[in-house]
């Protein structure tokens, strides 16, 4: 299908046409931060943004989510499954690193003998409209983890910001059928395509942080007990900013919430984090990961060693949120540097 052009002034029209069919999620300003929320007005859409504070995984895997509801009738329990999973979702204006995270999440939740039906159903019913990242931040490193500021593959429809207009490309079948509904879009010219390509190139060049993650994985696999972990975890204060703002973190806790006056309740899941002491604390009092060193290590190992060995890809999309969020600036780039230093040092020894 041919590429189309969407004028920036026509976003409102796009919204009002799609809003009837889809639950329309878009980046919008909430208390000074960009967040993906279900919007009720096209004016709220904020497309000129760096990236959202809380990643858009929040839409498909919200911080608090009902697994099922229940009712007590005497000694009987009646379980009611969720009915809203069939709603059609539209996630508009997602950065490409986050769009890629949806693929990772989907692969993770679909892996193994048990599939997470709740997430997968939502994912199936969600259409993702991605937007190219013209000016990546200093803390971004998507190209090192197999992404790209203009990586179209993980979206359904792809937008690139050409100044006054957006170039619109349908990437998947879902995207094509969505574009068919927007028949009023004009056709793109060759110059627009060239411009988009140019922007992509510029964006790629703007990314200065680059890592060889194959090497990182190799070093991590060999150095579980290395003293560098002590150094890495030293200044960590054990808050969970990095994990809560991570687009690929999936850990959750399961809780029963009761409405005691009405003999009903719901089993919910809420985000949990490997940085919390309670995460692994057993009822007996034994804790397999009792200190910060183990918890910090678990986070890094999970993303860059366990993920590759279990799912054959890195558990990171290079969005840089953990880098900007860390309050003590104990950030990922430094950690990776320290890990790679192990390899350099051992290399020196061999050559010496």
């Amino acid at each position: 299908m041919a590429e189309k052009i969407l004028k920036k002034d026509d976003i409102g029209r796009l919204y009002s046409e799609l809003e009837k069919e889809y639950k329309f999620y878009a980046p919008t300003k909430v208390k000074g931060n960009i967040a993906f929320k279900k919007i009720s007005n096209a004016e709220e859409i904020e497309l000129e943004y760096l990236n959202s504070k809380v990643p858009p995984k929040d839409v498909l895997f919200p911080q608090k989510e009902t697994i099922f509801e229940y009712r007590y009738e005497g000694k009987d329990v009646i379980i009611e499954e969720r009915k809203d999973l069939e709603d059609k979702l539209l996630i508009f204006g997602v950065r490409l690193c986050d769009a890629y995270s949806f693929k990772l999440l989907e692969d993770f939740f679909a892996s193994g003998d048990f599939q997470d039906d709740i997430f997968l159903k939502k994912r199936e019913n969600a259409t993702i409209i991605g937007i190219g990242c013209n000016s990546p931040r200093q803390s971004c490193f998507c190209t090192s983890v197999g992404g790209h500021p203009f990586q179209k593959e993980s979206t359904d429809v792809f937008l690139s910001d050409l100044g006054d207009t957006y170039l619109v490309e349908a990437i998947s079948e879902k995207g094509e059928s969505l574009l068919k509904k927007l028949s009023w879009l004009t056709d793109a010219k060759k110059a627009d395509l060239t411009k988009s390509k140019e922007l992509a190139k510029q964006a790629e060049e703007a990314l200065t942080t680059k890592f060889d993650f194959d090497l990182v994985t190799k070093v991590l696999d060999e150095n579980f007990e290395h003293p560098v972990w002590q150094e890495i975890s030293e200044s960590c204060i054990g808050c969970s900013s990095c994990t809560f703002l991570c687009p690929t973190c999936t850990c959750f806790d399961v809780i029963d919430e009761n409405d005691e006056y009405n003999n009903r309740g719901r089993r919910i899941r809420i985000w949990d984090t490997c940085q919390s002491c309670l995460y692994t604390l057993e009822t007996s009092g034994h804790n397999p990961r009792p200190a910060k060193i183990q918890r910090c290590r678990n986070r890094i190992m999970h993303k860059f060693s366990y993920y590759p060995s279990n799912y054959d890809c890195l558990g990171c999309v290079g969005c840089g949120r953990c880098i900007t969020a860390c309050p003590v600036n104990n950030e990922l780039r430094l950690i990776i540097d320290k890990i790679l230093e192990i390899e350099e040092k051992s290399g020196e020894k061999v050559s010496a």
Partner: protein
Amino acid sequence: MPNPYIPMLTRVKSIISENEVRDIKTIELEFQKEEKYKAFDYIPGQFAEISIIGKGECPIGIASSPTEEGTIKFTIKKMGTVTSAFHNRDIGDTIGVRGPLGNGWPMEELKEKNIVVIGGGFAFSTLRSLILYVLDDKHRKDYGKITVIYGNRDSGEVLYRDVLEEWEKRDDIEVVLTIDREEEGWTRKVGFVAAIVKEVAPSPDNAVAIICGPPIMIRTTVDELVKIGWKDEQILNSLEMRMKCGIGKCGRCNIGSNFVCIDGPVFSLAELKKMPNEY
């Protein structure tokens, strides 16, 4: 694929208080729908997420054997919020069950082999399941000699007295019971499990040792076994870990890249030695 987080509903059929202190109970559950029971196809050593809806969920090893038809059993010690709530249940109460989960004891690999079962204290539940399974008429011929070494702090803590007595009467299974300290009226062995293992000295030839118990018992027992020629591959353990989902999604029960809930809970000592020491 149905939502894997939704429990199947069962009812409490019977409750047995297992020990003198009365903080361990065995609860027998009957499925509310017959077809759900049919679908609940498990082997010894697997566990299930059982929940009191409104209180929470916890992973418990299945104590009954697939050969005991009609119901499933769990032995629960009163420890935290959910397990305490289990101790307050009455007959007829509704209980949710999700499972079976985990890999369980490798029943196929154990065939034709001698089995040495070593248990300590309350961790005997999945071992009970295993022994009942092997002793069943349908399966007995598939397996070799069975030796059971079961240790407890005192005689009041011995679980499953009825089946133990039955086993002691049989001649195709050797049962060695022990308690830590001498006690009046106790006619069986006295001493820590490791010491008894040394005394019994089970032969490693064509055999597999299955060990469940507190960490200190496991460590000392494994030392003894290694001394008399057992190999790491022949020693099986069942691990415990904090779990929420039981299906490899909630993240917390990983040891290295393995999840205890889906790759375990049964690991051989050889496998454990390859994993980081985070359990």
